[in-house]
Every structure is written in structure tokens, then in C-alpha cells.
């Protein structure tokens, strides 16, 4: 029960706020994430493990015509064990890329609160009267780490099978098993239906 209450609390606290800022003829869907989810025990443990905790923020419009594109942003958080600092990397829909180095989880949370993430660039007025479905997923490692782990295992098995007397055709089966087994299950996943506010997170009006 306490776990459920905790999860509910986490859900409510993590709810992001959406802004729709006009830029010339387009509108930018932006958000700032509340990093309370980083206090979740699973996420907290994963942050210090050395793996790159990946936060994916996805935005989809619920229009039936599907004129509004979907979009999102990704944040990669890795604890550098040697230097004992958090290396944070951020990519958004517009292709903006930023790297920062922070000392603690609280610093990350503070950075998230003040960092505006651009999710989607919208043309026209497809967004009018439409709700936005926002999903935040916290994944235990990055796609690059996933591929590296798959290659490492495949390489190790291939080295074993290159010995005399082994069956080469089994490698393809093992690669298939590795490819389908190594997945990125979400540590946490939240989803909301939100209506964006007009303006920018800094308080500017369109």
C-alpha cells in the first residue's frame, strides 16, 4: 500500500507542464520536467550503477486526423565513477544538444526544472483544441550501451565457436537469441493527457 501511495505521489509530482510558444509561423511545444522521479529507489540505484539512465519524454497529439506530428526529447544521465560526477547529455526534437556536468541528483533535478525541452515544432493550427499525450519513460541504459552489450556477447560467443569442432550455424541462432533477449525495460513510466498553455516557460506571451 505504501508503495502504491509512493507511486501515486511520484506520478503527481512528476507531471510536466506544457507550453506552446509561437515562433514566426510555427508553434513550438515545450516542457520542463520535474525530476522528482529521480528519487525513486529503482532509478536512484540505477543512477549510481555506472549505466546511462535514459529519460525519454514523448509528446503525441490525440487528433484523429494525425496532422500534428509526434516528437520528444531524450536525457542521458551517467555517473562517471572515476571522477564521481554526473555527466548529463540532452537531445531534443529540434536537434539541440547539450552536455553538462553535475555533482548530485539534486543538481540534476534543479537543472531539469530550469531547462526547457523542445518536444515538437508544429505547423499550421493542427494543435487547436487538441490534447497532448505526454509520456515519460526512465530506461536503465542507453541504446548505445544495449548494442555494445549485444556485440560483446555475440563476439564472445563467436570466439568460442571459432574453435575447431564447433558448429558455425549456431552463431546465427545465438545472435537471434541475444538480439531478442537484450531489451530496455522501463524502470518507470508515466503518461498524462495535458493541454498546453500558450506562451513560453520563461513567461513570455506569444
Amino acid at each position, binding site marked *: 500500500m505504501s508503495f502504491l501511495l509512493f507511486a501515486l505521489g511520484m506520478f503527481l509530482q512528476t507531471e510536466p507542464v506544457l507550453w506552446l510558444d509561437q515562433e514566426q509561423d510555427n508553434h513550438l511545444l515545450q516542457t520542463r520536467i520535474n525530476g522528482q522521479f529521480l528519487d525513486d529507489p529503482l532509478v536512484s540505484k540505477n543512477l549510481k550503477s*555506472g549505466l546511462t539512465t535514459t529519460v525519454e519524454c514523448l509528446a503525441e497529439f490525440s487528433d484523429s486526423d494525425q496532422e500534428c506530428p509526434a516528437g520528444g526529447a531524450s536525457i542521458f544521465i551517467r555517473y562517471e565513477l*572515476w571522477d564521481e560526477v554526473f555527466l548529463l547529455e540532452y537531445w531534443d526534437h529540434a536537434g539541440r544538444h547539450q552536455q553538462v556536468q553535475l555533482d548530485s541528483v539534486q543538481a540534476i533535478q534543479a537543472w531539469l526544472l530550469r531547462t526547457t525541452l523542445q518536444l515538437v515544432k508544429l505547423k499550421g493550427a493542427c494543435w487547436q483544441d487538441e490534447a497532448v499525450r505526454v509520456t515519460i519513460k526512465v530506461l536503465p*541504459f542507453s541504446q548505445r550501451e*544495449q548494442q555494445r552489450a549485444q556485440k560483446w*556477447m555475440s563476439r564472445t560467443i563467436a570466439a568460442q565457436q571459432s574453435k575447431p569442432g564447433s558448429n558455425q550455424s549456431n552463431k546465427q541462432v545465438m545472435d537471434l537469441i541475444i538480439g*531478442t533477449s*537484450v531489451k530496455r525495460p522501463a524502470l518507470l513510466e508515466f503518461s498524462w493527457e495535458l493541454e498546453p498553455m500558450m506562451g513560453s516557460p520563461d513567461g513570455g506571451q506569444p
Partner: protein
Amino acid sequence: MSIKSTLFGALFLILALLFSFDYAYRQFTVPWVQFLFQSEFLGLLEESETDQRLLANLDPDQETRYRERFERIRAIRSNLQILELNQKNFQKNLNRAYLIVLALVFSLAIGAYLLHQRYVQRNLATLKNLIERLVEDRATEGQSVRGVFGKMEQMVREAAELMRTKNRKLKTLDHLSNWQESARRHAHEIKTPLTATQLEMERMESLLVPFLDTEARSIWQKGKSHVFKELDRLKEFTVGFSSFGKINQPKLQPINLRDSVADFVEIYAHVSPNLTLEWVEPELVDADWSIRADRDLIRQVWMNLVQNSSQALTADDKGTAQMTLEASSDGIQLVYSDDGPGIDEAVCERIFEPYVTTKKVGEGMGLGMAISKKIMLDHGGDLEWRPSESGACFVMTFPRPGGVA
């Protein structure tokens, strides 16, 4: 076993094996997979990383080296962490892969088994059909199977042919035995009145002839001569009936057939003025020609053949008859052939029947070949006519000691 019951049995077997495999996999393989992903290794690697940092602090000159080691250990640890997070996925997919391979192997095995069963059933049905046709003495052309069933088919055909031959011989033997019984009775029935008639004729001669004049005596003598001539013919038939009816059972003794035939030919080479008998050395020089036979009876057969060949020729003709031996799996075959006029094909079928002859009336009763056939059948062998381009050819088959031809 029907296809339905075979399929049901196969399905049950597959399910039982799959269940057993799944249970064994969970009990034995899963612990080993879990062993690989145990957290103790990750803990040790983490400690190693910490150690590298501490060493770098203690020995800053080697920091680069320690950093490299640290990065290598970290990379392996992160890979293992990722694999540990997906441990259940690995187990599940390995299990699926094993089950798929097992199911494929069993399906192939079951498929091959069913195909083999179908092949066996089809060939058995063909064999059964063949046997039924053979039993009913119907044509069996076109009935053919392959492989081991082909060998079985051949064995069945050979067995059927052997049975047919034996049945034919038994039938012939039975037939001849009936003729023998009939001949014995005829001989017995004719002998008594024949003797009585002769005695009565003599008694009448002694009583009546003294009272006859010369002319009457002449008539009496002529008549008596005719009657006695016919009585002699009847006596001859009676003797023939008797000899046919009293063919003795052979007293078998071991003899060397080659030596026996060679001796016979040497003695009787020119027994007939118009026929020369020759011995042809067999091709298999070192073969074993030992048989068990009644020497006197088989000589009777040979004499009969020689006489027939001689009687088939005219007084002016000169002919040759040859005797040789052949060996086969059935036994030893003595082949007798002449260069005479041969035997009419219409008669060949019945040549061994009693009273069937190609000779003129009064020149033979047609019992010789029947007697010869009976003698050979009593020896466990046979006497058969063999078609030849010219002349007549007969084959006497003798079983090897311990066997029956």
C-alpha cells in the same frame, strides 16, 4: 496399427518428451544460467574499479594505466549489468529455442516414421495381394515391391513355386499310384481266366483232335495258333500290368552318380544296333555327385530311355544319345538327349501318363515312361521332358543327400 492410433501415440510421446525436457531444463539449465549472472561477479568488478581509483590516487604517475584498466572493467561490468537486467529474457528465449529445436527434431522424426509406416503398409498390402493371387493361382505380373520387401516378395514367389512343384509331384504320384492299383487288379483279373483258357484249349485238343480228319485238324491248328497268339498278347499285357503295379519302393544307398552313369554308358554304348550311347563329361569337374538311390531302379529308367530312343528310329537310321550331369541348388540333374525324331508337342504334356505311347499298336503299352516317372518320384526327385531344338531331351533330378528336390 492405424494412422489415427499412430498419430495419437506420436502426439502423446511428443508432449511427454516436451514436458520432460522443460522440467529438466528448468531444474538443471536455469541454475547454470543464473550462476553466470550472479551478483557476486558484479560486486567483484565494482571493487576492482574502486581499487584502480585508489591505486591511481596512490601512484599518480600511473594514473593513465589505472584509468585504462578502470574503463575496461567498467565496460565489462556495464555489459554484465545489462545482461543481468535481461536475465529472465535470456532464460525464456533459450527455453523457446530449445523447445523449437526439439519440436522440429521430433516432428521430422515423426514425419519420417509416418512416411516409413506408410511405405511399409503399402508394401505389405502389395505382398498380401501377391500371396492371395498365388494361393488362388492367379496371374501375378505387375506385382512388384522394392527394397527389403522386394526380397520378401522374391521369397514368397520362390516358396509358392516350390509348393506348386511339390503339389504337382504329389498329384502325379497319387495319380500314378491309382493307376498302379488299377493295373494290379486288371493283371489279377485277367491272369486267372487267361490261364484257364490256355488249359482248356489244351484239354480240348487232347480230347477232340484224335477224332478229327486231316482238314478239320488243319482248321483246328490254325484256330489254336490264332487263339494262343492273342492269349500271348494278353499275357504280355498282364505282365506289363503286373510290373507297373509292383514297382518296388527304392532301397536307397549312397552312390556316385557320375561313376554310375559312366559305367552304364560304357556297358550299353552299343546295346542297340541303330543307337550309340555317349557319356559327356560334366563341366563342373570337381563337383560332388554323391546321391542316395536304388542302383537297379535308376538303371531301369535309363534303359527305358535308351529303348525309346532306339525304337523311335527306323532300322536304317543311325542315332546318338548322350548322357551328362548338371548341378544346381535343387539337386543333381542327369540330362539324357538324343538326335532322333523327337516327341510331338501334343503328346509331351501326357508323355508320363500310363498307356500313352507314340508307338504302333503291339509295339508297347505306353507304361515305360509312367514307370520311370514313378521311380524318380519315389526317389524324391523327378523326371521331366525338356524342350529342345532337335530330338528328345529328358532331365532326371536327384535330390542331394538329406534334401528333397
